[in-house]
């Protein structure tokens, strides 16, 4: 198959799996899983430095060389908080990518789309490559595209839930609604969920918990890598239409005894 690259703004990639760095039991496991995933982009969170602890092992020293950092604005509940966090993330990484999260509800962690669109517009003006985590709502996706976001990242299911794609039809509509890349972010539980997202036409899939909290995170990272690749190939190859009744694979002519 010819090179099947994709891009976020000015950044070009080949891997279609983006992975997080949260919830791992230890850094060596995380490092091995990140490497096994084949991902080129890895998400990180921005938090206050613990001033009581010095000389802690830095997360960054455990991220394989060459992976691009994607700072997120996780746990921000207003546009202003998210904008401040994004600016700090850019200062830390000196890059322009930001995974924009503005959460509206603590229990579901569903986005506050009003604040999200507001924050996106400000950050785009400031030169960020904005990747908004959003609901599976085509109207919001269009507003985010109109605000200048480099992609939209609708959820498959709530963050960390592992429920899989609860609304594949909305995801498909979003893919038909916007011209920017659509990445499915959150809700993936297992490799078939990732494959399904890619079969629907997602440009890539972003996940954290499904790998980090698997019994064997390194093997699951490989499974996700393969699932994303298989789903992408299925999408490109073009699936057959679903039919209610059978359609024989073997010829119905030349049967013996007729």
């Amino acid at each position, binding site marked *: 198959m010819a090179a099947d690259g994709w891009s976020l703004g000015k950044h070009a990639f080949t891997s279609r799996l983006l992975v997080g760095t*949260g919830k791992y039991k230890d850094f060596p496991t995380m490092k091995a899983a990140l490497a096994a995933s084949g991902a080129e982009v890895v998400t*990180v*969170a*921005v*938090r206050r430095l613990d001033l009581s602890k010095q000389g802690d092992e830095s997360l*960054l020293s455990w991220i394989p060389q060459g992976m691009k950092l994607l700072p997120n604005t996780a746990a921000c509940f207003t546009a202003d908080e998210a904008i401040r966090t994004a600016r*700090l993330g850019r200062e*830390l990484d000196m890059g322009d990518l930001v995974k924009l999260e503005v959460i509206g509800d603590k229990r579901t962690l569903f986005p506050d789309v009003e604040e999200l669109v507001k924050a996106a517009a400000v950050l785009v003006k400031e030169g960020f490559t904005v990747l908004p985590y959003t609901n599976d709502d085509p109207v919001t996706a269009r507003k985010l595209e109109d605000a200048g976001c480099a992609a939209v990242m609708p959820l498959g299911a709530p963050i960390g839930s592992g429920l899989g794609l609860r609304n594949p039809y909305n995801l498909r509509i979003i893919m038909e609604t916007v011209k920017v890349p659509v990445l499915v972010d959150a809700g993936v539980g297992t490799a078939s969920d990732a494959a399904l997202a890619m079969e629907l036409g997602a440009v890539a899939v972003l996940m954290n918990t499904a790998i980090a909290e698997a019994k064997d995170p390194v093997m699951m990272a490989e499974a996700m890598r393969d699932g994303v690749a298989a789903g992408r190939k299925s999408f490109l190859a073009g699936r057959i239409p679903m039919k209610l009744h059978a359609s024989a694979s073997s010829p119905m002519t030349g049967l013996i005894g007729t």
Partner: protein
Amino acid sequence: MQVKLNGEIRELPDGLTVTGLLAHLGIKAPRVAIEVNEAVVTKDRYESHKLSTGDSVEIVAFVGGG
């Protein structure tokens, strides 16, 4: 002078710059970012940016997240 540092009130020497603050706290990690009164202080301004009493300072770093 009194400065609010990562949410806690701290007593610090008067006229400390951001460079001085990092040295005072023993922070060597190059991968921190600083915000003073909700505005980022870029690394090229660490030497020149003097803190004042009542400032609110945030020192942040990357942690694991998704």
